[in-house]
């Protein structure tokens, strides 16, 4: 068992320990924190043992699992998956800390968080399509429970919608995988589900035109792209804060990751044939998401729609299919993961203190919760793409990529950014300033376990904003590798 395999399995073992220790529910959060920290530590070791010069999959392991179908347990990381891998371990740890006061069915909550982490880590490292699919599906179940048990008033409806919607998408993915298995087998001479092997195959153009839309649909639902986004606002609004952070911070990234790793890398010709449609959908997500966010009274729903808008950047960056576009898209995924975590945690803190998230019922919070509001405004700045924060680097690189490929389309992307600035500043003005409402007289600022994750996230956001090279270097080799596929 290699280091990477252990990193994936440790959260699962942690969840097992939590479930076995159900008699003492107060210990579950310590076990969860312990296993999350160990996982993060191991992810850091993975980072340092990773050779940035090499664009191949590294630190991998292949175990024969179902040889009679050509399925193996194969894992490995490269420049595309490693940043998301580390992000996952980081956000899970911070969510465990942020959820320190969860007492309602605590063992189940922390256990599910750990299973979720294993699922996501597996998705980012799997090098076999069936393994990829299995981890992809495993992610759904804990999230279904997290929304359905600890969620808001319409949790039943939201959790069902999330489960069914995303499950349909993944089932469509399995059809595409099955098609690639046989078509690739004919070309390779042996039947395999291995992702590197099938990435090396050049599929016929007609075949790519058929399979790419299926893969695109599967990943577009997860990303989500308008018009496949309707599950997201419901899921986010009803999910507990920890669930929202993981949902927006890492689960959406699975869509972007799949898009780059599978859809674009294996079917570049098919992807280019549909570029116009994809760019249209991406612009729709950016502009529509921003406009709908403008109209929201619920702070959390506003952030949820801003996520849709920001994920549109990822899609259009990938669709521009050039150096800056793809690099920006990957950076944007990591940056958005950090920033959206700040926003959802800030939102959760406000809800804890004020018992409401409605912008119309909040005002003057700056005087009652100065620290939260400072962090919140920094999150807003980062999210709207202010230079100096991680959000800026990703969006700017994407804009460069879009300009290079589509020229004036970039103006529409800028329109999206402008609206984003408007709704963030307007919302902040309404909740932070003005007279303190009667109902908010007695609220307190954030607690220490809420402050710690927020501070860490803000520091990281600023760090990657000022020193983006640390991350860009990591993904550089892989981006050039992806572009080579088409140029040959």
């Amino acid at each position: 068992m290699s280091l990477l395999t252990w990193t994936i399995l440790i959260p699962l073992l942690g969840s097992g320990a939590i479930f076995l220790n159900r008699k003492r529910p107060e210990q579950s959060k310590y076990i969860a924190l312990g296993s999350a920290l160990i996982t993060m530590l191991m992810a850091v070791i993975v980072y340092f043992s990773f050779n940035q010069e090499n664009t191949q999959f590294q630190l991998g392991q292949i175990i024969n699992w179902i040889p009679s179908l050509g399925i193996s347990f194969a894992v490995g990381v490269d420049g595309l998956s490693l940043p998301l891998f580390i992000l996952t371990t980081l956000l899970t740890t911070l969510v465990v800390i942020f959820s320190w006061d969860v007492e309602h069915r605590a063992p189940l909550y922390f256990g599910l968080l750990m299973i979720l982490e294993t699922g996501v880590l597996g998705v980012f490292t799997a090098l076999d399509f069936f393994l990829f699919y299995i981890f992809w599906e495993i992610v759904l179940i804990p999230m279904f429970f997290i929304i359905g048990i600890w969620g808001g008033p319409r949790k039943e409806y939201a959790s069902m919608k999330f489960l069914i919607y995303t499950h349909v998408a993944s089932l469509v993915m399995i059809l595409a995988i099955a098609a690639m298995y046989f078509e690739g087998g004919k070309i390779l001479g042996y039947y395999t589900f291995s992702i590197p092997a099938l990435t090396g195959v050049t599929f016929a153009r007609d075949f790519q035109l058929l399979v790419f839309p299926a893969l695109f649909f599967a990943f577009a639902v997860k990303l989500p792209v308008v018009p496949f986004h309707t599950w997201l606002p419901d899921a986010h609004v009803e999910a507990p804060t920890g669930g929202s952070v993981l949902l927006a911070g890492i689960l959406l990234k699975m869509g972007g990751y799949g898009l780059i790793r599978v859809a674009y890398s294996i079917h570049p010709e098919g992807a280019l044939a549909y570029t116009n449609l994809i760019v249209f959908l991406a612009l729709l997500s950016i502009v529509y998401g921003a406009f709908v966010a403008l109209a929201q009274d619920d702070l959390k729903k506003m952030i949820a729609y801003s996520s849709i808008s920001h994920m549109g950047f990822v899609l259009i960056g990938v669709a521009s299919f050039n150096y800056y576009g793809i690099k920006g898209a990957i950076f944007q995924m990591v940056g958005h993961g950090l920033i959206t975590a700040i926003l959802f945690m800030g939102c959760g803190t406000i809800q804890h203190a004020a018992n409401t998230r409605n912008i119309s019922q909040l005002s003057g919070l700056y005087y009652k919760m100065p620290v939260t509001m400072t962090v919140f405004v920094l999150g807003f700045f980062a999210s709207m793409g202010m230079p100096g924060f991680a959000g800026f680097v990703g969006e700017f690189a994407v804009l460069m990529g879009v300009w290079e490929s589509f020229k004036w389309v970039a103006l529409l992307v800028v329109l999206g950014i402008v609206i984003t600035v408007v709704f963030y500043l307007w919302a902040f003005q309404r909740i932070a300033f003005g007279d303190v409402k009667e109902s908010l007289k007695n609220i307190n600022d954030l607690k220490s376990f809420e402050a710690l994750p927020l501070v860490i996230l803000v520091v990281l956001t600023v760090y990657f904003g000022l020193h983006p090279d640390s991350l860009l270097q990591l993904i550089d080799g892989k981006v050039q590798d992806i572009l080579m596929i088409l140029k040959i």
Partner: protein
Amino acid sequence: METLTLQDLQFFLPEVILITFAFVVLFISNKNKSSLLPFHLAMGALLGALIFTITQLGSEAILNFGTVEINTFSLLLKIVFIIFSIITVWGSKDFAISISFGKEYYGLILFATVGLTMLGSAGDLITLFIAFELTSISTYALPLIDRSNERGREAALKYFLNGAFATGLVLFGLSLVYGLTGTVLLKEIVPIIAEIGYEPMIVVALAFLVAGFGYKMAIVPFHLWAPDVYEGSPTPVTSFLAGVTKKGAFVVSLKILLATLIVIKIQVSILLGTLAILTMTVGNVVALMQKNTKRMLAYSSIAHAGNILVGLAIITELSVAGSILHIIAHGLMTIGIFFGILYVSKIRGGYDLGDFIGLRWVAPWTAFGLLIILLSLAGVPPFIGFWGKMVIVVSAFELGNWYMFLALALVLNSALSLVYYARVIRVMYMDNKGVEFNMATKQNTVIETREITAATKEIGKLRTSSYNIALYVCVLLITVTGLFPEQLVAISREAARFIIPW
């Protein structure tokens, strides 16, 4: 081919053991109702038969002028059916004590198991038919075995009349096949039909066979008996009918249809494919509307019959392997879940969705077992139900063209089925208030709920009930085979090679 030698008789040992013990069970004294002797005898017979069958694994033989074939396919199915019967008998321990016909119940199950074990190895139409009828006739009385169950009468009558009618159809189809080919040996039928080529009578024979087996497999539009029978029968019987004997019908269809359809493969594919899509869709849509979990599972079982039929419609080595895999998977899941809901009905009073509210607090392990089986039924990895479906889906892409729509129909139906499975999960784990969100009216509505009384809590502690044991055994098998499916997939593929005639 030679006559039987003494050496060859070892292959009949499992059947001989089962038949002998079936008679012994029937003839023991009936005085002591709570005696566990019939149970131990039945279990002993099944375990003995299982051990002897496992020792034969790997051997290959054609016995008695080709009427009995021993190969991987037949041995695999023997083992599977015997294991299914063991779980059913084990789970029925508490049930058999509570009814007046306890030993007859075990006797009938043993006779039915003999028929099932013969199905896989039958090499000619007559042996096949007799084995099939032995299974059917033994199970006709089962829905009425518990006389305190009022609804059992309707169920038994419906099951018997439909079964007898279906038998007639099958027999007629088989006689047409015999008339065309002049032989009853399956091995000889295949080349003869290939030589005759297309003949209208083959289509007629096929129509009768599909209709006849369609009744037995409960595929739409021959399914109307199934929900009533499954709901009306005592639950252990339902689990045996839906989980075990119905699978026998699939095995027979695999053998006979594959043999006869060689010349009209495409037409048969289209026919079976259409029936499969119809079966999956109708089963799932109707299951979606059920508030009673037992009836819901009856319809879900119909939908799963459609999944298995997809594998039959594609007819490649991989798809048949997928069908075999799904037959095994669905058998395990069905037995497990029916015993699970039986336990729930014992502690909560009924099978309504409302009886499952807050089950997690009343019977945590039962709820957990049901959760695993429900996920497996919905095709969520890493459980065996996922692999069965996925092998069928993957196999559809080997041939391409319209089979891909079959695969699409299968996965969309699979997603649809998750809606009603997840509803049960939600009620068990999330719904402690008994409130349901109504999609149509966008409002919360209170559904009928029974209070968790002190008494039911007390019963909830009886976790060692035999119903629970059957559930846990199934859950264990589903999880282990789901995590390490290699052995099962490999043996299914090998078995499929034996029955594909080309």
